[in-house]
């Protein structure tokens, strides 16, 4: 079943809209943008105009309303119909950069930073990971020293999605002592003196989405850009991670579904030993196994969404979100690998979609918290 149990007619109407947008605006350019490692900047404005970019954000900030369930189905259709994971995740980087601003920022900050991004006028990124370490968030080293009305930031960030083009970056910095009690979030705008893009990184997958190394050298940022209270950033970061993991799980379900659909179509078409591939039980069983793993991943991802909507996205969600991410990640890696196998030599060729999906899939056990860190979270929430 290519839908979540929580879906209503409203969700299928939203799916139809997003599908039309992605099929028209993304799919025809998918290969070109992936190979160019960039998609046109005006896609943000077009996605906003079509009501796609703002799904899940309050109407008061230019969003389309709706909740996590709407974001999840919109994201799925973007991937299924757009056929470019890189474009979708690049276009969606506000999904991790903006929520902390809406959650703990002031009204003025929401209007100033979040609204233009939701309207598709500005690009945003979230910068937590540093060259020295990503998993150990509590020990990140980028420093922000208070100096009058400003913070002076020194340090660097890496692997930052949309960082190359971002107009504003929600940055995790150390404002206090060691450990998680010394972290804060602050918005750094493009053009601020001392803030630069070190380089655009070359990656295995997610090509159409740019990934940057960011450098802060005596970068003076107004204290008014601090999001939430000083030294209270860790909790905002952790809450944001939990939701990001639901997004990532949903992306995995979508990518796996796409790879599965491609495989069925190919297996029906391709002939071997005088019959189509689907004529071989071995191939049919492969497809059945793919379908089953996807169904399981979809069920757990859907459950997290439903629980989140019912109980709120409190700490109880973190463990289940981590489980869903690992389950969906594994399903996606398995399915994409099998999809390449079903395609034979063509599956290894750049002109076939599954080749790209296979590379895109490899990110998911790493990004947004690694598989091992997910298990650490499960251990904590399970109490051992």
């Amino acid at each position, binding site marked *: 079943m290519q839908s979540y149990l929580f879906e209503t007619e409203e969700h299928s109407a939203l799916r139809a*809209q997003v599908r039309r947008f992605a099929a028209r605006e993304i799919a025809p350019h998918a290969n070109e943008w992936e190979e160019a490692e960039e998609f046109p900047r005006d896609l943000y404005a077009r996605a906003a105009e*079509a009501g796609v970019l703002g799904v899940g954000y309050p109407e008061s900030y230019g969003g389309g309303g709706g909740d996590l369930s709407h974001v999840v189905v919109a994201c799925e259709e973007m991937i299924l119909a757009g056929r470019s994971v890189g474009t979708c995740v690049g276009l969606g980087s506000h999904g991790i950069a903006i929520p902390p601003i809406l959650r703990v920022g002031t009204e003025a900050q929401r209007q100033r930073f979040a609204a233009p991004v939701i309207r598709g006028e500005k690009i945003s990124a979230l910068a937590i990971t540093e060259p020295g370490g990503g998993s150990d968030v509590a020990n990140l080293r980028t420093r922000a020293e208070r100096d009058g009305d400003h913070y002076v930031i020194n340090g660097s960030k890496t692997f930052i999605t949309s960082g190359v083009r971002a107009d504003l970056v929600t940055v995790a910095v150390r404002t206090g002592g060691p450990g998680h009690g010394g972290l804060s979030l602050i918005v750094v705008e493009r053009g601020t003196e001392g803030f630069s893009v070190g380089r655009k990184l070359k990656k295995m997958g997610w090509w159409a989405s740019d990934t940057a190394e960011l450098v802060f050298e005596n970068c003076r940022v107004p204290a008014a850009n601090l999001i939430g209270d000083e030294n209270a950033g860790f909790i905002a970061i952790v809450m944001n991670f939990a939701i990001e993991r639901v997004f990532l799980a949903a992306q995995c379900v979508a990518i796996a579904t796409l790879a599965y659909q491609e495989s069925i179509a190919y297996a029906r078409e391709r002939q071997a030993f005088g019959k189509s591939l689907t004529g071989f039980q071995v191939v049919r069983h492969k497809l059945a196994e793919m379908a089953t793993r996807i169904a399981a991943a979809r069920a757990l991802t859907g459950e997290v969404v439903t629980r989140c909507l019912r109980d709120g996205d409190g700490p109880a969600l973190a463990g289940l979100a981590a489980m869903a991410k690992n389950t969906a990640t594994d399903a996606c890696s398995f399915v994409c690998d099998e999809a390449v196998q079903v395609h034979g030599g063509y599956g290894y060729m750049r002109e076939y979609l599954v080749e790209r999906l296979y590379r895109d899939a490899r990110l998911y056990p790493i990004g947004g918290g690694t598989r091992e860190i997910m298990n650490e979270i499960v251990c904590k929430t399970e109490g051992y």
Partner: protein
Amino acid sequence: MKILVSLKRTADPDNANKVKVAPGGAKIVTDGLEPKVNPFDEYAVETALRLVENGKTRIAGDTVVVASFGPKEAATNIRQSLAMGADSGLLFTTDDDSLDGDLVARALAKVVEAQKPDLVILGKQAVDGDSNQVAQVLAETLGWPSATFAMSVNLSADKKTVTVGREVDGGVVKLTLTLPAVISVDLRIVGAKAVTNNVTPAAFAYNDGPRFAPLPMIIKAKTKPIAEAPLASLGVDTGLKVRYTGFELPAARKAGIKVKDVADLVERLRTDAKAL
């Protein structure tokens, strides 16, 4: 200004390769195909909305009503047009096999009598049967002026006439109709400036194609009324006049050939295709 738009739920035409013909050629089988709004009807909804808008805002007092004939599930498709901006829906339930172009037109005429719209806008044809009958039969039944295959529509400032552009061999014919009237629309009607109403500023350009329904409108559409009644309640003779004698799939296309160069191409066109 009140506009009535008719809308048909059809099997997804983009899935044409899955359309099958029942054994014996009695009918077209659309099982397993995703139902969606007939694209030309979506263009009709878009046309109607543009006529009742001043750029991005609605003109107060103007309404767009959408009517459909078909299964109960067609309410979903009506709701889609409500999410685009139409105000209310009418669903006359029956099953698809109990309808033909003639009956739909006569039923629609009854709806027109009750709703008293100034303008009826339809898609030029439904992409399943491709009959292309309803607008013409409806206009005839009502005795209203009509223009089919509209590629442009201009509503006069006094809202008494519409001027319709129709693409014909060698150019565009413009017909001016006195309202009330019936219009059927073609693909080009959703071009950026194809629909004008002397209210929306001339500089305003719509996006090409039918509009996207953003989530707030999708949510709002749930509260807009859709009145449902059996087709028979309209008091029309439900007998079918159009009889289909058989369906068959077109012959499978043969593989093409590759030509070496232009000289070869010309030669092939002359000898094989006999096109020159």
